[in-house]
């Protein structure tokens, strides 16, 4: 798979504060790449550097195999983006906004194509309404249309689901999948909506305090077979003691806040239950925890 984005040792200081710290990652062609982190983790700063809005203090960014700052124009011609909020010209119509941003992208887009873009995001009927009359969800969708209007190969979306209702979130999710599946676009998307990322991302990067915590394919990060199981019994101490005396002991990964967690294969859950019951421990629950949210929190909890 060809690398579309290659970031090496990217660092950005704001005065004494390191917003991004020695960050390296690779985004492959045709992927939906989830970029995750808590608020203030450095996601937006990284995205701003990918779009040349902010200069890195050090490090390299290559997009489409070219150095971003040396081949800025060539690269940005093939990039569409929403950065944080989809702020557009509120005193202009959706149509006028699209036309302006298409021209700025160096592309002459026909009226038919403009209307197609608006249809794609469900705004064709309001094409000639001023943006100031739009709801937050409509603005968000128009922002996506602006990002797509010049048919870019790489689409960078910073929190595209912010402020959307459940239907709006589902629409954006389907749109991202449509872009990847039907047009082969590469989508780099940052979000804190972890369950949404779990549904759409092929690969993910989790950052915390500007540093990479983990990067990999969704499968490798969220191995569906290997799960963390939360064990709740009527006698936690005895249960822990018993487990530590057996092979199960090496699977205990966390014992904080009264929780007992074991990392095991899903298929071993019944056997674990049988072992505990056989030793006279009353098992109240054995709950598999394998969602991205659990994983994310286990990595970034401070």
């Amino acid at each position, binding site marked *: 798979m060809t690398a579309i984005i290659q970031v090496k040792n990217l660092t950005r200081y704001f005065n004494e504060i390191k917003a991004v710290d020695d960050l390296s990652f690779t985004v492959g062609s045709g992927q939906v790449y989830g970029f995750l982190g808590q608020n203030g983790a450095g996601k937006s700063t990284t995205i701003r550097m990918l779009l040349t809005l902010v200069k890195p203090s050090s490090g390299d960014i290559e997009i489409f195999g070219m150095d971003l700052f040396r081949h800025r124009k*060539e690269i940005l011609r093939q990039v569409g983006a929403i950065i944080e909020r989809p702020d557009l010209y509120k005193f202009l119509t959706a149509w006028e906004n699209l036309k302006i941003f298409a021209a700025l992208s160096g592309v002459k887009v026909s009226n038919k194509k403009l209307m197609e873009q608006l249809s794609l995001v469900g705004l064709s009927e309001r094409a000639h309404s001023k943006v100031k009359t739009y709801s937050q969800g409509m603005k968000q969708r128009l922002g996506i249309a602006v990002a797509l209007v010049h048919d870019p190969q790489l689409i960078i979306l910073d929190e595209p689901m912010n402020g959307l209702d459940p239907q709006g979130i589902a629409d954006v999710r389907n749109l991202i999948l449509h872009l990847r599946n039907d047009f082969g676009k590469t989508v780099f998307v940052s979000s804190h909506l972890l369950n949404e990322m779990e549904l759409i991302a092929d690969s993910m990067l989790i950052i915390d305090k500007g540093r990479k915590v983990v990067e990999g394919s969704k499968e490798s990060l969220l191995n569906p077979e290997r799960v963390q199981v939360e064990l709740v019994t009527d006698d936690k101490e005895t249960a822990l003691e018993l487990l530590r005396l057996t092979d199960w002991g090496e699977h205990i990964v966390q014992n904080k806040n009264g929780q007992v967690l074991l990392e095991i294969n899903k298929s071993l859950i019944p056997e674990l239950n049988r072992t505990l019951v056989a030793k006279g421990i009353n098992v109240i629950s054995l709950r598999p925890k394998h969602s991205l949210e659990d994983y994310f929190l286990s990595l970034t909890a401070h």
Partner: protein
Amino acid sequence: MLRLLQLEIYKIFKRPRTYISFAVITLIILLIQIGLKFGGKEYVGMIMSGMSGTFEIPPGDILNGYFICFFCLTMLLIHVPILVALIAGDMVSGEANMGTLRILVSKPVSRTRLLLVKFTASVFYTLLLLLWMALLSLIVSMLVFGTNSLFVPRELEANIISESDVLWRYFAAFGFAAVAMIMVAAMAFMFSVFADNSIGPIVGTVCVIIVFTILTQMQIPFYDETIKPYLFTTHMLGWKGFFYVKGIEGTTVDGSVENISSIVKSALILVGYAALFLLIAVWYFRKKNILT
């Protein structure tokens, strides 16, 4: 480049605030014209009573379209910078405030080009505003009040310029005023690059002009040689020089200008200021981190 310029101009004229300036100028000029139509003779009499000597032109003929235009320019050109700053001071900071600057800068257009296009658009607006002013104050006044020799009041005397020698002076004066207003636009534009909201650059421009104007008008000999020659406000009213005519034995010489070198010097200083402001704007914008 031309396409980008068209888009910038399109954006300027799609905003209602753009038309405030045109409305203000229209209102003021109309008020001047109405006032002088009905009470102009008294006004002219008032001016002449303060002067020594007699004039060949009868007071009734002084009140013509050329004189009305001169009156409008004297009244307006001091205040037009505020209207110019209203748009030029918003060109970059307004985009930052709306959140659209980050989209613009992430497009495949160099920052320098983006900035130059925006500045050119604000120059276009400034020129259009002056053209509108010229149309109302000169052409409309000529149609309503007719034409005759131009009576130009000075401190204790007056110049009377023959009718056939006036029109070119207005073209020159508006040309000079255009240079002065472009300089103001460049200053407001520069402030706009440094700010993330429009109020700061607009207020900043107006404040600088007020402070410089006060310094220019301050009658303190120490400042005459040290500061005043370098203040742009000293040179902004240089357009009046086109109406100060050489005189021989009490008559004015057609086609002459009393001190052309002073006008040229003032224009060059204004151009220098405009270039400096623009250079600072480009230099800063090229390295600016877009965080808004």
